[in-house]
């Protein structure tokens, strides 16, 4: 199952190891950038961590792949992930779980776990991940690296295999803020093929000056379910920011109560529709041609989709079905608007919000067996996706040897400010 382990990849960080050469010299010359396996690469298998796409070799490159290759990046391979991004640990991969470089018995976080493991272990200097509800920030936190979920509309999704279109963004992951910022600069070039994108390229501004910056500390980010040891690390990190001249402000984000439910209703609904195309007709493993359509289709989806994917398709189908749409999908969109308004209100007073990225450190592989407990781990990351605001996870020490991430969230299209605060923190603790 774990393809990578046999090929000098003990962490199973990669689903496919294949050197995709650069197309020209540029700002990423001499740099390896691993690419998550839900990002389309021409001529190189793109599976999304799913058996239903094994053998699928796309005839086209994602916009971001074009951009990094044109800037001179070498792609060492396609990284492991939870099937279609559905998971927070990279255990739900159709090709075996990825392992955390800090402790191979523990999860990498997910769903961009392979990208995080590749960077944290030095197999790649940078990586591209995608973040639907925390899928960049969670593994960045668990593996001790930097990961940015950009503002919605700042990076083209063209070539990103959709899980939940209205929530997700491709984003950069790297061992430090500068690298992460450089990769973000490269991938934020405008692409008219993504109608949800704005022509607002990221222009790095890493000067480490955060003097007078107002940082909100939402109480809900330190509430029930958050490991006190994690809280402690994050509070200390906020103290460092204050030491640099930032002003912290206690605040509240009441929509956190239902943000996670709104997130799961939205993402499963969109996913139930997005994943309908995997019928094996145009690409991927073929259905049994002798059977009638629905039978062949059901059989192949049952065989090739993992249980979590099928569970989410079921939930999403239910949430959109006649008689339940208003109660679930419709309501979730209202909740989403409340989350947005909460952010808008807070950002009138503060420049950034700070809190932990994840409520805990990385857990042992296999420790979370029921789906709901896995969902609950996303509670702190999903609000940024619901509102489309930028959020970064930057390492802020460890608990019992396992990394903890500080999450900084900013106003829409102020990814530069978010990154600069992360940079200020990183430089302060390094010194």
């Amino acid at each position, binding site marked *: 199952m774990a393809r990578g382990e046999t090929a000098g990849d003990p962490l199973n960080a990669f689903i496919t190891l294949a050197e995709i050469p650069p197309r020209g010299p540029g700002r990423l010359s001499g740099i390896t950038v691993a690419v998550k396996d839900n990002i389309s690469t021409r001529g190189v298998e793109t599976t999304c961590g799913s058996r239903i796409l094994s053998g699928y070799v796309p005839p086209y490159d994602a916009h971001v792949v074009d951009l990094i290759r044109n800037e001179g990046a070498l792609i060492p391979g396609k990284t492991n992930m939870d099937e279609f991004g559905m998971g927070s640990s990279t255990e739900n991969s159709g090709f075996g779980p990825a392992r955390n470089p800090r402790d191979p018995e523990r999860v990498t976080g997910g769903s961009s776990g392979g990208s995080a493991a590749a960077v944290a272990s030095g197999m790649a200097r940078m990586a591209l991940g995608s973040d639907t509800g925390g899928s960049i920030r969670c593994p960045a936190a668990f593996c001790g690296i930097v990961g940015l979920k950009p503002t919605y509309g700042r990076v083209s999704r063209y070539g990103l295999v959709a899980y939940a279109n209205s929530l997700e963004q491709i984003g950069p992951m790297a061992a430090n803020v500068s690298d992460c910022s450089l990769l973000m600069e490269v991938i934020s070039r405008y692409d008219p093929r993504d109608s949800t994108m704005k022509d607002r390229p990221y222009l790095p501004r890493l000067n480490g000056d955060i003097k007078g910056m107002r940082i909100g500390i939402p109480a809900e980010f330190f509430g029930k379910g958050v490991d006190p040891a994690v809280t402690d690390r994050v509070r200390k990190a906020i103290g460092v920011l204050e030491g640099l001249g930032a002003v912290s402000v206690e605040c509240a984000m009441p929509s956190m109560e239902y943000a996670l439910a709104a997130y799961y209703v939205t993402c499963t609904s969109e996913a139930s529709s997005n994943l309908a195309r995997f019928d094996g007709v145009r690409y991927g493993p073929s259905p049994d041609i002798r059977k009638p359509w629905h039978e062949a289709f*059901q059989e192949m989806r049952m065989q090739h989709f993992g249980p979590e994917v099928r569970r989410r398709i079921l939930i999403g189908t239910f949430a959109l079905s006649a008689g339940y749409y208003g109660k679930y999908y419709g309501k979730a969109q209202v909740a989403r608007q*409340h989350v947005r308004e909460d952010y808008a209100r807070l950002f009138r007073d503060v420049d950034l919000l700070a809190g932990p990225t994840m409520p805990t450190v990385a857990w042992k592989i296999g420790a979370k067996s029921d789906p709901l407990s896995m969902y609950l781990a996303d509670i702190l990351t999903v609000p940024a996706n619901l509102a489309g605001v930028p959020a970064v996870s930057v390492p802020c020490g460890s608990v019992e040897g396992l990394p903890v991430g500080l999450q900084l969230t900013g106003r829409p299209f102020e990814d530069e400010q978010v990154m600069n605060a992360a940079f200020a923190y990183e430089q302060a603790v390094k010194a």
Partner: protein
Amino acid sequence: MVSEEEVLHIATLADIGIGTGELPPFTRDFNAILDYFAVLDRVPAGEGWKSGIANVLREDEVTPSLPREEVLALSEAEDGYIRAPRVM
């Protein structure tokens, strides 16, 4: 509470095969998740989320299609057509 029959119905609607042995655990997880979703009943009334951006359009210009060999190489092809199970 959602019954096993309802889960089966949804599975049919979603065209996602479901084995009889799978039905009880799927139904159990399904109900646990729906219980959690009940928090949405407490969402204050309001307008649904909107992006606020409109009229994103492209000009009517032809761009190259994919080379046919590349399209057909992805699937089971026959005389340039792509094969699928019968629907009649």
